[in-house]
Every structure is written in C-alpha cells, then in structure tokens.
C-alpha cells in the first residue's frame, strides 16, 4: 500500500486509479467485523437490507493560517455535491439547508454536480476523514481534489497544506440501515454511530433507532419482503409485505402516510434513484401484473402485464429513469419503458454473445452519459410535464432497441393485438425456473440475474444477450427473492449462496471472496460503497457487518491505547 502512496505522491499514479486501488484493496480484506455489531431486533428471517445513500453530500472546508496547528480553524466554504435531481431539490429550499447544516449567510455555498467531475460514472466517492485530518499530504480522493481545486481558485492564495479539515457535514449519507424481516417488523439502525460500547471499546453495539412491527397500529401483519428508502432523503421509507400491502412510512413520526393494496403477496418494491420527474414505486407481487404506485397521488399509475407468473423481483435501470426491469417466476426477464405500452425486451438465455464487447464499451459509456445528462438538464428548466415527456420520448426511443417480435405470433394474432402487447407472446426465458434476483451495474449497461436454477447470468442490456459468463455458484436459495449487491465500479457482485455470501468477479465469474458467518440461509446483502462495508441478513435473524480489516498502523495505535484488553488475546503456550 505504501508503495502506491509513494507513487501517488510523486504523481506517477492518477488520482482516480489510486482511489480505486485503495478501494479494491479494502474490499479484498473484507472480514466479519468484530467491532461493529448490529443488535438485531427481528424475530424472523431478515429479508431485505438497505443503507441510505443520498443524492447529494455537503462538505465543509476549514482552513488554518499556518501549518503549525495552532489557532482554531476557520470555515472557508461549503460545497454541496449533488446529482442533478438532488441539485434541483436543493435549490428549492436553500434556507432549510443553511439552517440544517449551520452555515452562516456570509459563507457562499458552491454547488458541484456529481457528473461534472472527471468521474465517468458520476459516482459518489469516499473521503477518508481521519486520514485527511491527520495529514493532508496523504493523497486525496479525486472528488476532494476537485473541491480543493475550486477552493484554490476561489481564494487565490489558499494552499493545500493550510487546509486542515474537510469534514462531511451531511450525516445521513451511508448511515442509516433499513431492514425488513419475516416477523413483519422493519427497523432502522445507525451504522456509523454506536449506541453503546462494550468490553472496553472492543465491541460497538448498534441498537435500532426504532422498529415498526405488528404491534404498530398500521404495521404489517405478515412478513416484510422488501423495505427501501425513499431515494432523495431519509424522511420516507417504503415497505412491501406478504399481507398484500405496500406502506409508505414517515420516518420522523413512524406513521404510515400512504397505503397501497396489492392483489397478492408483495415480493419486491423498487424506486428509481435517478428519477427526477416521477415518484413511482414498482411492485412485483404474486399477481402476474407489475404495478407502479405513485407516491404523489397515492394511486396506481401503471399496470404492466406480460409475465405469466408472479413477479419475484423488480429493478429500475441505472441509465434511464423510465426503464424498469422485472423478473418473474416464469423465468422471464422483461424490460419496460413506462412511457410506452408493453415491454420492449424479453431476455432469452439461448440468445448469447461471448465476452464483454470491448470496442462497444467506450461508445456506450458516452452514449449513456449523454442520454442521462440531457433529461436531467431539461428537468431543471422545464416545469410542465407535457413537453418534457415529448423530449424524453424522443430521447428514449433512440435508446431502445428494435422490438423483436417472435415469428410464431406474427401470423394470426399480430394484427389484432395492441402494439404494446406484441411481446406478450414472447415466451423466451432467462432462467429455468424463477428469476429470484436482479441487479443492474452502476453504469446501467449490464444486468445480473439470479435464478432458482442456481445460475447467475450476466446480460448485456444493449444487445439483450447472455454474455455466457460462468459464475461458480454452487447452489442458490430457490424459494425466496434474493437481494444481490454490486460494487460501484462493477468489479464484484455479492450473491447470497445458501448459508454463505460469495463475491464473484463480474467479468470472469470467479469466486474472489467467500463470507461465512450465518448459520442459516442468507437472503439479502447490501454493499455500502462509501465505507466499503457489506451488510448481510439471513434466516438466523442476524445482521452481520463485514468490514475491511484495519491496517496494521491502526492496530498498533489501538494496541497502545488498550494495552490491557488486547493482552487477553495472545498466544498462551504453557508447554
């Protein structure tokens, strides 16, 4: 590691690749954390986990006149990093933000779009807080460097070395873990601040902040199958349950503010994290139809029919806010453009291509980026919905591949069917048996699917082909929907494989890590890209935290501070 730090200092290594290297090193050393312990309140299997990751982050840059460390730091400026949607939202209530983060009027707030940075995928990046505080000579994250570059521009003479503190102000990012369990309870945990420490600081217990369960007057009667955060802030969360209900909860009052009655057991709910123009919950249920529930109006806006059996899993595309992917018990994976009738793509496992299409990659990245930044930009200007829909339609149409109409339906049914129903006759399957899990990669170009045939498949969304990557799965759970997780650079995918969680290399399919700790089947996992931590929940009612093992320097420091405690865990050879 220190060699790479040296490289970075001398400028041999680019900041982005350096940050990535650090990140992947940390991921490689993921281990069951002894320090962080989430005290699960659930009395049933954990079905779903999600850590809130916001669309914007606020930084406060402090500076000091000299590098000696004397004198209190001054507030230099506040930077808000936000996605396009987040920025739009922020502009509306700037006063609220000043109030919330305690920013005086004299300090100017800079806005940075996440996608304006040199980061190709517009991702949020990690700030190593304590390292920054300790020594700024330590090489920085590209994002932070960008911030500092702007600080330098704004203040002319401000030098990097005088900048002593740069702290995250936004405390909600990557902090609140939402979990739903089979006993009908959903709970929220603070994963960054422990509620109490034990054994002289050796163990930090994270107890839940609150729990809503059957005792709650509007709580779910049966198992919660899906619990997700409202993507913009932690004020709302959505739970779907086997009692045919989807509840929208207000986090602060822990009351149900909306309730959707579904025709059958709810298997999975999803909201688009990049959406700027709609607030739709996609719900996969026992019923063959996928329904979209609008939080704004409290009504169903869409009913998407095409599956022949219940829908186990739903997922929004990461590249277009209009595209929804659903996987059903009939083994089909269908793509829907919610602005048009019917589905436009049904994945077929026999329709395959080898490998990753390296030449196409570059082009598609730029294309995706372009198509994404355009509606975002528009949405900030255009308020009315109709013209936006028009432009979006044109935009989306470019993206969509040709509708592939299966030949056998063409003859006698073709004329009578509504154009949206054309693909309903397409019986292509992506898996033998049910599709139990779906995950779109961070760039929205690839789709990973897990099936009850114990297979994991990687699909190229652009061409709709199976890439034939052979994942070394042994067995997957068949009866429940699985929640997969993927790292931000799409290098690793975390898959619950019976009692263990395995991390596969996305492009080669090889197992790179195996996480054994649960005593019964694992149902869900969530990878927090900010802290490089993995959260897993299983039938044994435990939520486990897998965090990077501490570097040796940290351990030495810790050892000196708690010499007595660490002395207990030593070699003890009496003979």
């Amino acid at each position, binding site marked *: 590691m220190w060699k790479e730090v040296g490289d970075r200092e001398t400028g041999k290594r680019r900041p982005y690749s350096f940050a990535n290297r650090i990140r992947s090193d940390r991921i490689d050393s993921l281990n*069951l954390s002894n320090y962080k*312990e989430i005290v699960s309140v659930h009395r049933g299997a954990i079905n779903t986990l999600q850590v809130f990751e916001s669309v914007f982050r606020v930084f406060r840059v402090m500076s000091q006149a000299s590098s000696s460390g004397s004198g209190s730091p001054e507030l230099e400026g506040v930077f808000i990093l936000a996605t396009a949607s987040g920025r739009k939202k922020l502009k509306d209530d700037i006063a609220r933000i000043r109030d919330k983060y305690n920013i005086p009027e004299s300090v100017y707030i800079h806005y940075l779009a996440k996608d304006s940075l040199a980061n190709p995928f517009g991702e949020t990046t990690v700030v190593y807080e304590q390292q920054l505080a300790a020594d700024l000579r330590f090489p920085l994250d590209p994002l932070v460097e960008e911030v500092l570059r702007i600080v330098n521009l704004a203040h002319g003479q401000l030098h990097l070395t005088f900048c002593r503190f740069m702290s995250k102000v936004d405390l909600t990012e990557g902090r609140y873990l939402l979990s739903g369990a089979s006993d009908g309870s959903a709970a929220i945990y603070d994963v960054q601040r422990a509620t109490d420490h034990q054994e002289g600081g050796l163990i930090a217990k994270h107890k839940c902040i609150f729990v809503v369960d059957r005792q709650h007057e509007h709580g779910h009667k049966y198992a919660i199958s899906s619990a997700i955060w409202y993507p913009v802030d932690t004020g709302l969360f959505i739970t779907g349950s086997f009692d045919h209900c989807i509840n929208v909860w207000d986090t602060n009052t822990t009351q149900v503010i909306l309730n959707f009655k579904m025709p059958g057991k709810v298997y999975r709910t999803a909201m688009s994290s990049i959406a700027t123009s709609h607030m739709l919950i996609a719900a996969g249920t026992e019923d063959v139809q996928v329904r979209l529930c609008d939080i704004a109006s409290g009504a169903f806006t869409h009913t998407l029919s095409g599956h022949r059996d219940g829908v186990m899993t739903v997922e929004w595309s990461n590249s277009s806010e209009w595209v929804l992917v659903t996987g059903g018990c009939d083994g089909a994976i269908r793509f829907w453009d919610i602005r048009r009738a019917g589905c436009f793509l049904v994945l077929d496992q026999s329709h395959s291509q080898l490998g990753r299409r390296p030449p196409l990659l570059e082009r598609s990245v730029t294309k995706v980026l372009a198509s994404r930044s355009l509606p975002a930009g528009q949405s900030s200007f255009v308020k009315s919905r109709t013209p936006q829909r028009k432009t979006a339609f044109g935009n989306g149409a470019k993206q969509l591949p040709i509708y592939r109409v299966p030949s056998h339906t063409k003859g006698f049914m073709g004329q009578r069917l509504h154009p949206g129903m054309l693909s309903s006759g397409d019986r292509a399957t992506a898996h033998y048996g049910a599709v139990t899990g779906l995950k779109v990669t961070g760039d929205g170009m690839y789709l990973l699917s897990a099936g009850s045939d114990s297979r994991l498949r990687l699909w190229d969304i652009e061409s709709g082909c199976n890439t034939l990557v052979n994942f070394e799965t042994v067995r997957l759970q068949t009866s429940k929907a699985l929640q997969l997780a993927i790292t931000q650079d799409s290098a690793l995918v975390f898959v619950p494989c019976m009692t263990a969680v395995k991390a596969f290399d996305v492009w080669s399919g090889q197992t790179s890590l195996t996480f054994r*700790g*649960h005593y019964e089947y694992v149902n869900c996992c969530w990878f927090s890209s900010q802290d490089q931590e993995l959260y897993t929940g299983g039938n044994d009612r435990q939520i*486990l935290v897998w965090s990077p093992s501490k570097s040796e320097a940290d351990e030495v420091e810790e050892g000196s501070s708690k010499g007595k405690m660490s002395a*207990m*865990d030593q070699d003890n050879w009496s003979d």
Partner: protein
Amino acid sequence: MVIRNFCSVSPLSLEKATNSTAPEVDPRLLKSIKLVVRSSDSEVRLSVQTLMEKMKRDHSQVRYLALLIIDELFMRSKLFRSLFVVTLDQFLSLSVGFRRHLPLPAPPAVASVLRSKAIEFLEKWNVSFGIHYRQLRLGFDYLKNTLRFQFPNLQQNAARIQQERREREIRSKEILLKKFESLKENLSSIKDEIQLTIDEIRECLDILHINEDGSMAMGYAEEDVEEFRCSALQQIRLDSLREGEKVHENSDNKAVFDVLKELYKVLVMRHFISVREWISVLVRVEPTDTRFRDSTLKEFINIRNCLQSIKQSCEQSGCSLPNTKNHEEEDLWEEGKIEAFANGSDDALNKPSEDLASASFVNEEKSKAPDCSNKDSKGSETVVHEGDGSDSTTSLKRVLLADAPVMSWGSFLDNWGSNRAVLANQRGLELESHWGRVDYDASIPAEKIAELNVQAIMYKEEQVEIRPCLAPLSKGGLCQRRDLRVCPFHGPIITRDEEGNPVNQTPLIDEKTLDLGTVVAEKLAKQAVKNVRGRDKEEIKKKENDRQSLKRAKLAKVREHNVTVLREAAIASTSRSEIFVGDEEAAGGNRLSVREKKQTLASMLHKKVTSKDRLAERLLNTRTRDATIRQLTQGEDASYREAYPNQW
C-alpha cells in the same frame, strides 16, 4: 532444516493421534503436536487444515479426538484461533451436528460425547475469547438462543453455588449469634436448673447406697488381687460382681427408684442434649467479646463432665432408658467412654428386670430373620453368642431354641403370641375414602385375628430330574424327550450308552429281587462279550483318529515350509521388507489374541445389540410415548379450562 522436517511430521502425527479408540489423545503425542505447531506459523496453518479434514471424516471417534486437539491448540495460539473461527459454522455442524441433513456419524455413544464436549468447548471459548471473535459469539448465540441447546453453564453455576454457600453461612452465623445472645441472658437459670437436678439425683443415690458401703469396698479389694488375669475375663468377672453388688429394686426403695428414674430421664433427655447444643453453639459462634464465650464454654464443659459422671452412677444403680436411640447418640458424642458404656448397656439387657422379656424377644426376632436364608448355622451362632452373657437364663433358652421350629418371616409374626382384640373402625374411615360413622366399640376378637394371620407357606415342589429317552434317531443324534416312564416313540425309558444302545440294567435291578443264579451268569457273560466288543471298537476309532492327526501334522509341516521359503524369497527381494517381515512375525505369534482384543475404528462402527438393549429400547419407547400422550392431553385439558373457565 528443522522446520522443514517438522512440516512433514505434523499431519502424520495428527493422523496418528486421531487414529485410536482411546477416549483421549495420547498425551505424549499431543505434546509433540503442540511442540511442532508452536514452531512456526505455517505449521499452524497446516494444522488448521488437517484438523478440519479430520473433522470431516465419517467417524465420530476421529472427530472427537480432532476436537480435543483443536481445543488444546485453540486455547494456546492466537493465529490458530483467527484461522479457525473463519470456518466455525462448518466446525459446529460437524461436531454438534445441528444440521438435519448432516447428522453425526456412526458410533452413537461417541457421537453423543462428541456433541456434549463440543458444546462445552464452545462455551469455554466464548467465555475466554468471545469478545475478540464475532464468529464465536455468533455460534454460541445461535446454538443457545435459536436452537436452544443446553450449555453446561459452568461459570455461572459455580458462581451461583458459591453465592448460595456464602448466604447460608451468613444466615447460620446470624442464628448462632442470636442463640449466643439468648444464652447470655439466661445462663444462670440454665445452670441453676441443671444443678438442681444433679443435686436431687445425688440425694437419691445417697439414700440408696447408704447400706451397701461395706460390700463395695470388699469387691474392689478382691479385684486388686486378681490383676494378673486376662482383661476380658476380668471384665466378665467384674461385671458379674457388680451385678451382685447392685441395689435391686424392691418394695422398700421403690419410691426412691421412681424418682431417680424420672430424674435420670430428665438428665439424659433434656440437660445432656441442651448442654451439648450450647457447647456446639459456643464453639462455632464468633462473638465480639471472646472472654465471655471462653468462660462459659469452660463452665459448660465442666457441667457436662459432671453430668456424665452422674449419669454413669445412675446407670450403675440400675437406671436405663428403654429406647436405644439415646445410647447411640451418646456413643457419637463421647468416644472415650464407649467401652464402659457398652458394658453398661449389656448389663441392662441381661438384668432380670421387666426389660428382659422385650429385649430377648427382639433378639429372637433378629436371629430369626436371617434364618430364612441359611438354616441352622446362624441360629446356633446367635445362641452361642447369647450364651456367653449369663448362664442361668440362656441354658434354658438354648434348650428351647434347639427344638423350636425355624419359621420363614411373614406378617403373621407381627401378632405372634398376642391375644389382644384389635379395635376396628376407630377413625370413621370407611371403604373408598368416605367418612362414615365412628364406632368406638367395634373390635375384632383375637381369635379372628389369629385366623386372619395364619402362617402361609408356598408349596415347593421337589425337583426331580427326568431322564431323557436317548434312543438313537434315524436322522442321527439321540432322542431328547423327557418322559416319566414311557417315551411315546421309543417305548419304556431305559439306561442307554453313548450311542443309544440299551444297556440292560432292568434285569440288574430285578436281579436283586428275583435272585436267580443262572440268569445272572448268562447276563454277565453277555455283558462281558459286549464290553470286549465295545473296547475293540474304541481301539479302532482311536487308531483312525491317530492316523488323521498324523496326516494333518504332515500337511501343516509342508505348509509351514512353504511359508518360510516364500518369506525368505521376499526378504531377499527387498532390503526394507525385512523389518516388515520381522514385524509380521512378531505379530503373527499372537495374531489371534490381537484380533480378539484390539479394537479398531471400524469395529467401533459395528453396533452390538443385545436382547437387553432391544428390550430396553422397546420399554423406553412405550414409556416415553405414554408420557408424551399424557402430557399432551394434560396440556389440552389445561388450555380448555383456561378458555372456558365456567364450563368444566
């Protein structure tokens, strides 16, 4: 160099250590394993791997031994721990067998030991290293809270027991202190009371002894002369002397005796016990002022000694308590006086007072009880034993005992010789637990009781051995039918020889009754001929046997020769095999015995089911089934009652 050497040793020694049927690992091997593993980190890694492989073996014994080694290393090496906990879930499923599709392998006895040991170890590990390893905490928590396994809970149990003991001690101390305080308050009254009794007893004794002084002195003088005799005889003599000396109860001093007896009773039953209790309280109590304690303790000891002497003199003058319980307690308390006291009680027994009848009756019963098992020897012994006590009574008794019948014990003995009527329906308890009328006068006459308590004797058949028929059968062998006179297939039963040919004995029996000389001669001749023929036959048989055994010996020799030749050839072919052959030879000598004795891992897998096991299993099954059914129905009942409280 050394390390590389060890590298190859570790898995081998582990293999060796886990491949035995012993209930624990060979301590020397274990020590060497520890030594090797300690030598380097790579060894630790290797041992973790090898031990996990051993845990996967399909044999509980191997797993058990591996578990023991794992525990040893786990408690010692940090690296071992950190490597081992990663696969803890696997380890637990292999050692505890909590997964339904992965039960523990074959020898079920070892498997249960393995499970309990694994649970015990997990608890120990969790207590000592749980805070450092989340996996340990998880495993422990899962087994305890989800699967509800019973952990031995050693630590808590020990703490609880300690706590309980402490509390008990504190409580008893408080009680002692309270007693001590009360003693402080009424010490003088206690002492006065005792003193009063002692004085009264003394007075009584004085009254009794006034006119006997002269003879006493004489007795003691005589005693001095005969010192040279052996002590036992002397004792006997002394006893009889004292017996003579005794002041016997008569109409003159009856009143005094009555008072004395009363006082003696008070002394023994009350004062003795209370003094003893107070002394024990004083010994155990830890008061603030020890001076008072010491002084009172001294006083009490004095009082006790005084009481003791008084008591003895009482007993000498013929007081005793009818119940023997007190005597026993006395013995426990004063060890130094056992002998003298025992003599005293003997005296009491043999004394011709009204006690005698009951005492002898007790003795009689005692001697009868063992009689039912072995007949006369014991009885006579007890008679002799009684005889050495005193002569006049026992000689009569001996005569009586000699022709008294020996009875087996039974309930009829309860009312032996009593001719009292028994009260009936005194309490009003009638049949089937219902209270009825009380009839105080109702009684069962003694004759009726005697009728009801007639001695019952089980009829015992005389065992007669019925001879088998032993006639030769067509399919070979002899007829094994046992009939009294006539076998339905082979006619009357007669004595036969080994092959089933009839030996004509019936005439021999008849011979005595008939007594006919000619017949006898004929028979004898026949018999002689037969005997000679039989002898010939035997000789032929013997010869044949000899020939066969010779042949066999020859064959064996040839075989042995072949084996040696082959072995030599083998030895010549390889130099290494020599050692092997040597081993084989050594083993070959007692191969049979080895096969019988040595238990292998494979042999442990064979289940030995005796008929007893099978029976036990069946019994247990039905019993548990009944129990569960009962429990379930009870539960149903209870829930029903709860649900409908006013309907049952």
